[in-house]
């Protein structure tokens, strides 16, 4: 962006830069708070830490009107298709913050039911360490996403997107979950037929 030095009433830029700048400073978060990290996320949005300074104070519980998914908390096997469906409902361009040890790696919960890192299923732009992370860490992650947005980058662009519903190999959100919850050893055998009715 170039700003004229002599007169202060005009500036030159490219349309992309202007659009990216606008996007970066008006990220609309979609909170996905499933556990204790969600509480810390709420603290980050309150008056003391004041996410409004970064233009992203409007928490929208509607994925279709937001472009920043904040996964804050544990994601179980049963919740993960919901999370992925919400991600796929968000319009491009979109970013994702994985907040806390659980969302990023499963944390201490290395158990039969917990996803060991949401980045196996959705593209993550910024990871936040901590259990839970401080609101300052949240703001740091938000600023990292802003930097990416200013450059027009998003992790989701590195992934094949396209029509997820037509390619079941890439999306679990649109599959019937019949085979997923069964034991790994059963993977080759079809799920038991449910009696019709």
């Amino acid at each position: 962006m170039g700003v004229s030095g002599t007169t202060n009433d005009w500036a030159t830029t490219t349309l992309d830069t202007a659009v990216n700048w606008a996007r970066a400073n008006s990220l609309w978060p979609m909170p996905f708070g499933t556990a204790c990290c969600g509480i810390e996320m709420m603290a980050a949005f309150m008056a003391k830490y004041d996410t409004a300074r970064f233009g992203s104070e409007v928490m929208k519980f509607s994925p279709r009107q937001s472009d920043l998914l904040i996964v804050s908390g544990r994601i179980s096997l049963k919740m993960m298709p919901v999370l992925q469906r919400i991600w796929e409902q968000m319009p491009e361009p979109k970013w994702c913050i994985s907040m806390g040890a659980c969302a990023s790696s499963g944390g201490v919960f290395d158990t039969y039911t917990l996803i060991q890192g949401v980045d196996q299923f959705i593209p993550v732009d910024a990871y936040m360490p901590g259990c839970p992370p401080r609101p300052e860490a949240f703001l740091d992650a938000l600023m990292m996403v802003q930097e990416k947005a200013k450059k027009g980058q998003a992790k989701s662009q590195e992934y094949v997107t396209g029509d997820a519903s037509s390619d079941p190999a890439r999306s679990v959100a649109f599959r019937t979950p019949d085979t997923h919850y069964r034991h790994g050893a059963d993977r080759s055998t079809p799920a038991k037929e449910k009696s019709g009715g």
Partner: protein
Amino acid sequence: MIVYTPENHLPLIAKVEAHLGERLLGREEKSHYHQFKVLAKDARALIQFLRDEPGLGFAMFIDLTAVDYLKYPVAQPERFAVITTLLSPSLGIRVQVKAFVAGGEPRIPSLADLYAGANWTEREVWDLYGIEFLGHPDLKRILMPDDFDGHPLRKDYPLRGRGERGNFPVYHATTQKPQGDA
């Protein structure tokens, strides 16, 4: 409010002992209630007695849970125990019934027709321990996904599962250009 003393439980203990006789495996004084131990086949009759006997009136269902004693260091009568906690609003005291259920195909009569609150807690115990509640109106999983195999709170279920976590297809980053309005 009635404060707990061992004395105000004496009528309850006397009534239960008289009612069950030999079938009472034992009782234990806990911090603020008594626990009666029975076999699964006697549990429902005892709970019905506690509910309907004049002077007892354990009309309020508090909780129902289970224990798997598979690797417990102290020997127990059976592998599983189903633990029901009840409250008597008139006496102001609680009581716990511990019903031992044999392993293999664990089965115990349902309480869902005595207490509406037992319906979902029994489904939870079925879901996580695989204990079947005979006569339950709608015994299906409540926490785990409907088509999950196994009962994960059993002590012989591996902590990291049996590969369920690996069954989901994962996203892979690719160098391919995104389609559409790139």
